[in-house]
């Protein structure tokens, strides 16, 4: 980690990349908080690392702050389920920040089975001048105390303290794939493959099951829940996606058990594109509401789709992420890459969407101009102060100099987790065990 401390001092101007090696562990989730001041990452080792954006300082002439490590803590430990004789992985599947309500920050982190609420507080003052204790904390000899003094608060080096406030355990039989905090700031939901539970943030011994798609006979199981999210403004609405490519919008006011959806978003299958892999590639790996709450973004294996909540028949926009893989599905099925779950993200103004791909590439689509770009997150191609160069994958035909051919793509280098700052053009990209933070200096503000 020595390299990390050194990179903190680097100042930057243009598009920059910082790479933080998180102790050879693979990053499994990335999430900005609601202001974008903090960025949390979870890894396979159960650790959470929080980065904080330095305030605009006099040292950096261009004024924008960089992200430095703020706190690191072990969120989940490997567990052993004695009843089933199974190890429970400590890998952090998802982190979600709670809206900040006081000086402390709170976040929820989850592994396959247990969700934990962590409170992050700062301490930068300590009391000095006790009457009964000396500076080291040892009790004073009372005979030496001749007068009373009032302890005063003196500044000290900033200390970040993280403490687990709640542990929400034993709510799930299957593996938790997503958590989502409700806009009411009191409840949140957690979804596993077959069920979704609603929790109150203050109550750990009880949760309500709001969706249950487990069939009476497990042999009839053909569909699982892959992701879910609460609506950003309407506390009664949430959406969940399935492995068959459908989205279900549910209203909690309708019934206690929301097995009946209020709206079903499903695109009819294109018969000309049908193959044995059609179902697998239609499985939705991530669903995100837009900041406005009007749209939803879904990611399946080859595309990202924008859905309008008012139209269930089909998405309003479809973007091809890596269509050149369509003819390679058999090989990708063989090496299991077809089961990779990519995430997707909106920018703050809902005008640009982003998602990851293979070979450490990630893609951005501008919904207004309909232009897209492929960028690469790697040390070799990201020198300090350099502008990221757009990349291109060539599929036969004319090949330009820096193009990569489909066959030389590295399928072990996949960008599954990405996050976009809620207000500015800053993105966090997790490439295996490296975290890249890119800033757009030229267009800092959303447009």
């Amino acid at each position: 980690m020595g390299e990390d401390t050194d990179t903190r001092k680097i100042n930057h101007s243009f598009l920059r990349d910082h790479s933080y090696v998180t102790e050879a562990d693979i990053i499994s989730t990335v999430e900005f908080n609601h202001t974008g001041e903090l960025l949390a990452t979870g890894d396979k080792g159960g650790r959470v690392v929080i980065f904080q954006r330095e305030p605009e300082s006099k040292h950096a002439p261009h004024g924008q702050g960089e992200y430095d490590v703020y706190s690191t803590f072990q969120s989940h430990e490997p567990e052993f389920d004695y009843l089933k004789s199974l190890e429970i992985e400590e890998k952090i599947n998802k982190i979600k920040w709670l809206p900040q309500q006081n000086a402390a920050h709170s976040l929820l982190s989850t592994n396959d089975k247990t969700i934990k609420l962590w409170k992050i507080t700062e301490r930068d003052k300590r009391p000095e001048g006790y009457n009964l204790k000396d500076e080291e904390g040892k009790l004073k000899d009372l005979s030496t105390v001749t007068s009373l003094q009032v302890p005063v608060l003196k500044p000290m080096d900033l200390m970040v303290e993280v403490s687990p406030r709640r542990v929400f355990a034993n709510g799930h039989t299957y593996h938790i794939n997503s958590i989502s905090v409700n806009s009411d700031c009191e409840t949140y939901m957690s979804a596993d493959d077959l069920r979704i539970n609603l929790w109150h943030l203050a109550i750990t011994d009880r949760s309500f099951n709001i969706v249950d798609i487990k069939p009476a006979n497990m042999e009839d199981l053909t569909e699982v829940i892959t992701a879910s999210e609460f609506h950003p403004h309407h506390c009664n609405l949430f959406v969940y996606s399935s492995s068959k490519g459908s989205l279900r919008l549910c209203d909690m006011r309708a019934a206690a058990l929301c097995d009946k959806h209020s709206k079903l978003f499903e695109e009819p299958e294109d018969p000309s594109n049908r193959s044995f892999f059609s179902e697998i590639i239609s499985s939705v790996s991530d669903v995100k509401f837009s900041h406005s709450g009007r749209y939803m973004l879904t990611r399946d294996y080859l595309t990202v789709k924008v859905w309008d909540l008012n139209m269930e028949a089909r998405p309003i926009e479809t973007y091809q992420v890596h269509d050149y893989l369509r003819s390679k599905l058999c090989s990708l099925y063989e090496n299991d890459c077809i089961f990779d779950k990519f995430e997707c993200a909106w920018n703050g103004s809902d005008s640009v969407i982003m998602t990851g791909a293979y070979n450490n590439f990630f893609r951005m689509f501008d919904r207004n101009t309909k232009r897209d770009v492929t960028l690469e997150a790697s040390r070799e191609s990201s020198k300090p102060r350099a502008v990221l160069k757009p990349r291109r994958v060539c599929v036969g035909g004319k090949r330009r100099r820096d193009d990569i051919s489909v066959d030389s793509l590295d399928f072990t280098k996949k960008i599954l987790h990405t996050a976009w700052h809620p207000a500015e053009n800053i993105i966090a990209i997790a490439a295996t065990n490296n975290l890249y933070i890119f800033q757009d200096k030229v267009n800092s503000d959303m447009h």
Partner: protein
Amino acid sequence: MFARGLKRKCLEEDVPADPVQRQSLLDMSLVKLQLCHMLAEPNLCRSVLIANTVRQIQEEMTQDRSWCLPGPQTVGRAPRDRLMSTEILCRSAWAGPPPAPDPADLASALQVVPAAQAPRASLGGSWDRAGPGESRGGFPRSLDQVFETLESHGPGAVEELFSDVDGSYYDLDAVLTGMVGSAKSGPEGLETFPHPASSKFRWVNFLKLSFICLRQYFVLRYIF
């Protein structure tokens, strides 16, 4: 980074796969399911997707059969084809890197089976060139491997085998049941489980039997 497996050409997206490619895709899927379930806690989403793919392939195979002209496509062939693929699956799952049955091999194997009276010999024979580890003697040995694998999970493994709460284990049963069940015209009532050694196409049932045997084995071992 490609998993070891049967080499085959990529299926083109819009090609209704020819039988050999479809068969090899089925094999691959079955291998994956088997390997899935060898894990202590299989990824349910993955299992479901693969199981659905298997079902889809089998539906198409059954449809094709019902469309097919007379000839080698007799009704009794259906289960054998499936079972054949399961044997490849068995060998590849238990006995290390599988051979690469190219279309010629499969075709010859398909022709060999109906003619043979000692089908185990013929089945074994058609794979003789696969290598030293792939002999018929490898079969009971692979059963031992299965025992070992499950045993190494420890005493708690019996709970896992019986687990109702985590129903994902049922997926394997579901697939096997689906396979067996969809062979509507399969001979000898494939639901029964005769002794494996005596049957010529009991590989599917043998798998189920082996798991049942293992369950009973664990029950006996740990309850008494």
